[in-house]
């Protein structure tokens, strides 16, 4: 179960300011159990892995394997029953602005009574900025996401792909050090998904943010990730973690057709199938 786990690069007890050598996220022997006694249900068990700073890590696994729960632990929305989750060396004890999370159900994560720009401005609201400054910054982010045309519209007037871009814009506006994505493109049609994958990969590269990306789509994980962690279910545990060495920038047709891509795909496919049984 521990094969393929990256050796921790954490530098021990020596106090120091956060450096790239400190993992952006680290799980040490994390487990989650609901209920107790006969009714105890183990959701996650013995999860140990690190995410190095500025890396793009994808987590895949069959539905119900606990991959979303893993992400929610990083966000501070779920507390593990054993083990410890840490970000940049500090234990996670609750939600923080430093860790933005993009939810799959974009329709529910946006405020329907606020315009698009005002939804993005939510990220600035605890910062004490003047409303005009919030507006300028929101529009700057919207321009980067090519959303400035719809700034004055309401989320309900946008397509699914646009709404998800608004949510991503809000999360990036938050200027997080760690960006958590929970199957963000899962509810979108194939074409929109591919467009957003490329846009997002480029934004992440520009912003230099660490990403933990949960998906059930094997190809999406390989296409986007520097590293793919595969989970097995009952209880949720790490089955395998592999590094994806594909060159960047990646390209929808060429990258996916490459021999390396296919090899990764075959390997992870068999792995997941094996654990499915």
């Amino acid at each position, binding site marked *: 179960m521990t094969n393929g786990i990256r050796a921790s690069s954490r530098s021990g007890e020596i106090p120091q300011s956060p450096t790239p050598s400190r993992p952006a996220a680290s799980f040490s022997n994390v487990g989650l159990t609901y209920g107790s006694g006969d009714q105890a249900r183990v959701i996650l068990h013995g999860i140990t892995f690190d995410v190095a700073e500025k890396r793009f890590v994808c987590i895949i696994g069959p539905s119900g394997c606990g991959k979303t729960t893993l992400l929610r632990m990083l966000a501070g929305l779920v507390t593990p029953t054993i083990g410890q989750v840490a970000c940049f060396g500090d234990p996670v004890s*609750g939600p923080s*602005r430093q860790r933005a999370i993009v939810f799959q159900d974009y329709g529910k994560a946006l405020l329907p009574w606020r315009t698009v720009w005002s939804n993005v401005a939510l990220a600035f609201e605890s910062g004490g900025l003047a409303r005009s400054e919030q507006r300028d910054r929101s529009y700057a982010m919207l321009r980067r996401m090519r959303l400035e045309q719809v700034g004055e519209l309401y989320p309900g007037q946008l397509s699914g792909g646009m709404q998800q871009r608004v949510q991503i814009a809000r999360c990036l506006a*938050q200027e997080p050090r760690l960006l958590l994505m929970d199957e963000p493109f899962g509810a979108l049609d194939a074409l929109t998904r591919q467009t957003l994958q490329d846009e997002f990969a480029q934004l992440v590269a520009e912003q230099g943010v660490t990403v933990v990306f949960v998906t059930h789509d094997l190809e999406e994980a390989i296409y986007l990730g520097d590293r793919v962690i595969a989970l097995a279910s009952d209880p949720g545990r790490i089955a395998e973690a592999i590094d994806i060495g594909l060159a960047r920038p990646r390209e929808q047709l060429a990258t996916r057709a490459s021999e390396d891509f296919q090899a990764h795909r075959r390997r992870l496919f068999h792995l997941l199938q094996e654990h499915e049984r």
Partner: protein
Amino acid sequence: MKNVARGALVPLGLLLLWEVAGRLGMIPVDSVSMPSSMWSAGATLLRDGVLLSATVQTLHTTLQGLAFAILLGVAVGIVFGLFPRVQGVVGPTLEVLRPVPPVAFIPLALLIFGFGVALEVSIIVLASVWPILIVTVAAVRGIEPRLIEVGRVLELSLVRRLKTIVLPATAARIGVGIRIAAGVALVVAITVEIVLNPRGLGYEMIVAQQKLQVDILFALILWTGCVGVLFNLLVAQVERRWLPRVS
């Protein structure tokens, strides 16, 4: 306008029948009056200024009571909605108070406040706070959990979370509670005036009854009906103007 005309058809027809029956001596005019004498009684009341001052008194206490009920109901409702444990502790006590008819508190309120505005307002609050409270709790519980999580991840303060997420997300439903409460408030105001408070439309009714002025009594009842309709329209209008639309 066409709808108004269609809606006015039945009441106007009934008034006409009533008038005709009264003039032909088919009904005892001494106890049920007729529209023409009600009309002249109403005109007299209006000229004396009694109608206006009584209406203002009643509406004033109704609005005041409703305002307190909204503040109390929304505040307690949000606390109960956000913190189910608080409701677990305080809720049962309130559940015991709720089924008591509000008018049953009139004697107690009279001892505490004496005659006047405070007496009436207190009973109105006791009666109209419930729909607002119940609807607010349900509305807060019904807020999309994702939105609450967004507020937590952005580390918004409790006050800011109330302002940016909780209140806008629940406003439309709370508005429904307020509309129900507004109807209750007016009914209770007039009830308290009829039962013992010497002010407002209800008191004028009791005075007319004691003087056996049936036409005045009828004029007041019909006028109260009109006031009620106008009051509900006003509340609906304020709600439409002020509460954000959640589409």
